C-alpha cells in the first residue's frame, strides 16, 4: 500500500512538473516577449494567388523591418527604438482563396480562435468587404492595402477600417482625364466611345460603375459593357462583343492570368482599341511584361509603384531587397507595396498611441498624417470612412517592356504612343 502511495506521489509530481513545463513556463515567456498578433487574409490559392502571395510577402517584409533593427532602411520605426521596441509582431496567415465566404470565416477564426489584435488584407474587394465587417463588429482594426473598390470606404459607420491605396473611383476620373488630355494633345485622337471589360466580382463591377459615372461626366459614351467570369477557359465571346462595338478606348478591370488571356484573345481576333487603360493589378503585375513580351506593350494603367519609379522613391530600394528574398526576386508592384505601407502605418499609430487599445489606435490613425516614404505622395492620412486621402497614382504605358510614366505630365518621363500599334504592325 505504501509502495503504491509513493508511486502515486511520484506520478503526481511528474504531472505537476509537466504541467509547469507545458503551461506556466511558456506563459511566462509569452508575457516577456510582448507579442502583437496580426492576422493576414490574402488569396494564397485560387485565380489571383500570385497577387495574394506577394501581398503576404509584403506584410512579412514590413514585420521583418519592425521586429529588427535596420538602420540602413529609411522608413519610420526601422531603427527599432521607442515604445514598440518592447514588442514583437507575429503574423498569422490565412488563405481566402479569393472567396468572400472563406475570407469572412477566416476573419472570424483569426479573431475568435487565434486572438489576433488586428487584421490586414484582403486584396479582393469582395473579400475585404465581409472580412472587414467581422473586424468592425469585434472592434478590431482592419488595415487594407490594395482592395480598390471605393465602396469599402463609403461606409460611414466603419470606425476601424483603413485603406492606403487609391480607389477605382479616383482611377476612373484619372482615366477620363487621360482621354481628354489625349484628345487635346494628339493629332486626330477623336476618342469618343468607351468599352468596359471587367471581372464579374465586387472589384470589377464597382470599377465599371465608377467608370460609367466618370465617362458620363467627361462626355464619353459607353458602347460596350462586358463582365466576365474570372478563371474562364476562354474570353472569346467577351472580346468578340467588345470588338463588334469597336470602342475608341477600353477600360479593363482584369486580374492575373485573365489579363494575359484577354490580351492574347485581342491579338487572336486582330483587334485593338486606340487606347486601353487598366485598373490596378493585371496590367501592373511585373510578370505581365515578362510573360507577354511585346504583346504587353502600349497598354496603359494606373500605378502607385513600379520599379521604374525607384528614382522618385529612394527609400524603396532597401525595403525591396527584403521583399525580393520572399518572392523569387520579383519586385514590388503597385498592390503589394500598399500592404507594406499599411503595416508600417499601423505600427506607427501604435507607437504614437503607446497603447494597444484598438479604439485609441484607430483614433490616432485618423488624427495624424503619417510619413510614408514608400508612397508616391510620401504621406498617408485618412479621411472619414478610412480612405487614404493622400493616395496618388501615375498613369503609365508599357513601352518596350518598361512602365513609362505618361500622366500627369509633370510626373511624366516620356510621351504616350498613341494610338496603340496594331498587332500586325509591331
Amino acid at each position, binding site marked *: 500500500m505504501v509502495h503504491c502511495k509513493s508511486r502515486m506521489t511520484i506520478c503526481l509530481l511528474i504531472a505537476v512538473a509537466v504541467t509547469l513545463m507545458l503551461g506556466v513556463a511558456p506563459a511566462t515567456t509569452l508575457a516577456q516577449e510582448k507579442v502583437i498578433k496580426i492576422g493576414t487574409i490574402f488569396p494564397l*490559392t*485560387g*485565380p489571383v*494567388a*500570385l497577387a*495574394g*502571395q506577394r501581398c503576404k510577402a509584403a506584410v512579412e517584409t514590413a514585420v521583418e523591418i519592425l521586429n529588427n533593427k535596420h538602420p540602413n532602411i529609411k522608413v519610420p520605426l526601422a531603427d527599432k527604438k521607442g515604445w514598440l521596441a518592447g514588442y514583437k509582431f507575429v503574423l498569422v496567415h490565412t488563405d481566402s482563396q479569393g472567396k468572400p465566404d472563406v475570407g469572412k470565416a477566416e476573419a472570424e477564426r483569426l479573431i475568435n480562435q487565434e486572438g489576433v489584435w488586428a487584421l490586414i488584407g484582403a486584396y479582393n474587394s469582395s473579400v475585404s468587404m465581409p472580412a472587414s465587417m467581422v473586424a468592425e463588429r469585434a472592434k478590431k482594426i482592419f488595415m487594407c492595402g490594395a482592395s480598390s473598390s471605393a465602396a469599402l470606404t463609403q461606409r460611414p459607420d466603419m470606425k476601424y477600417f483603413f485603406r492606403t491605396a487609391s480607389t477605382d473611383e479616383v482611377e476612373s476620373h484619372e482615366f477620363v482625364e487621360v482621354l481628354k488630355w489625349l484628345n487635346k494633345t494628339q493629332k486626330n485622337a477623336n476618342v469618343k466611345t468607351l468599352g468596359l471589360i471587367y471581372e*464579374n466580382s465586387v472589384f470589377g463591377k464597382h470599377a465599371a460603375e465608377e467608370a460609367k459615372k466618370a465617362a458620363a461626366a467627361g462626355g464619353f459614351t459607353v458602347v460596350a459593357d*462586358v*463582365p*466576365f*467570369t474570372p*478563371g*474562364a*477557359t*476562354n474570353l*472569346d*465571346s*467577351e472580346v*468578340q*462583343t467588345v470588338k*463588334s462595338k469597336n470602342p475608341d478606348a477600353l477600360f479593363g478591370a482584369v486580374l*492575373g*492570368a485573365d489579363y*494575359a*488571356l484577354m490580351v*492574347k484573345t485581342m*491579338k*487572336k*481576333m*486582330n483587334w485593338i482599341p486606340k487606347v486601353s487603360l487598366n485598373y490596378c493589378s493585371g496590367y501592373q503585375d511585373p*510578370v505581365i511584361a515578362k*510573360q*507577354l*513580351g511585346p*504583346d504587353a506593350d502600349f497598354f496603359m494603367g494606373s500605378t502607385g509603384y513600379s520599379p521604374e519609379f525607384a528614382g522618385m522613391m529612394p527609400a524603396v530600394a532597401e525595403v525591396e531587397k527584403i521583399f525580393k528574398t520572399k518572392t*523569387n526576386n*520579383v519586385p514590388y508592384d503597385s498592390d503589394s507595396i500598399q500592404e507594406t505601407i499599411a503595416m508600417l502605418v499601423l505600427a506607427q499609430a501604435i507607437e504614437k498611441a503607446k497603447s494597444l487599445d484598438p479604439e485609441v489606435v484607430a483614433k490616432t490613425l485618423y488624427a495624424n498624417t503619417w510619413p510614408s516614404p514608400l508612397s508616391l505622395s510620401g504621406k498617408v492620412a485618412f479621411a472619414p470612412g478610412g480612405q487614404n486621402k493622400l493616395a496618388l497614382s501615375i498613369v503609365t504605358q508599357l513601352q518596350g517592356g518598361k512602365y513609362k510614366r505618361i500622366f500627369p505630365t509633370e510626373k511624366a518621363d516620356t510621351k504616350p504612343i498613341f494610338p496603340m500599334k496594331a498587332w500586325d504592325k509591331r
Partner: protein
Amino acid sequence: MDTLLQVLLDGILNGMLYALVAVGLCLIWGVMDVINFAHGEYVMIAMYVTYWLGFLANVDPLISMFAGGLFIFILGALTYRLIIKYTIGKPPLSALLATFGLAMLLKNLCLNQFTPNFRILSDTWLGDKTFQLGALIVPLPQLVTAIVALVVVGLTYYMVRSTRFGWAVQATAMDKEAAELMGINTERIYLLVFGIGGATVGLAGGIMPTYLAVHPEVGTMFSLIAFICVAMGGFGSIPGALVAAILIGVVEALGGYYIAPVFKYVAVFGLYLAVVFLRPKGIFGW
C-alpha cells in the same frame, strides 16, 4: 452572318478542346465508375511538363505533348495503384474523397514548386498564328488542337470498340466478376484504363500551352466542364462526350455573344440541367 460564323467556329474549336480533356474522364468514369477529382490537376501538370520542356530544352509543345501524355499515363497508373485500388468495393464516396485529396496535393505541390505565377510559352511553332478564311479568322493553335482532339477521341473509341483490349474493358465495365470468370485480368484493365485516361488528358494539357497561360489553377474550370461533358454525353459514351463537348462549346459561344458574355456559363449549365432533366442518362447513355 460573318460574326455568327466566327462565333460558331470559336465555339466548335473550344468544344473540341473540351472533348480532348473529357475523353479520359469518360473512359475512367465509364469503366470504373470512379469520379476522378484530380482530372483538372492532370491537365495542369501536363501543361507544366510541356512548358518546362519548352522553356528549358526548347522543345515545341507539338512534340512535347507526347511527353505530357506519357507523364500523365504514368501518373494515372500510379494513382490507380496507390490510391484508387484501395477504394474499389468501398462506398463510392471514398474514391471521390481520395481523388479530391490528390487534387489538393498536386495543386499545392505546384503552387509551392512553381509559385502561382502564370507562365506563357513564347516562340512556339504555332504561336499566335492565324489565317483568314474569307471573313473568318482561324486561329492555328486551336485548329491543330481540334485535329488532335478528333484523332485522340477517334483512336480511343476505336480501341474500346474494336480491339480485344477494348472488349475486355467493356466486359469489365459491364460486370467485373463475370469478366474475371472469363479470364480477364480486371486489375490490369483498371490500371491501363486509368493510365490511358490520364494519357489522353495529358495530350490535351500538353498542347494547351501553345495558346494558354500555365498556372496552378488552370485546370479547375476545364475539369468542371469535362464533368459536364461526360454526364451530358452519357456515362462512358465516348461519342456522347464528343457531341456534348461541341454542344457546350457552341452554346457557350452563342450564349456569350448573343445574350451576354457573363451568361455563357449560365447557358452551359442550363443546357446541362435541361439534358439531365429530360434524359438523366445523358444524350448517348444507356
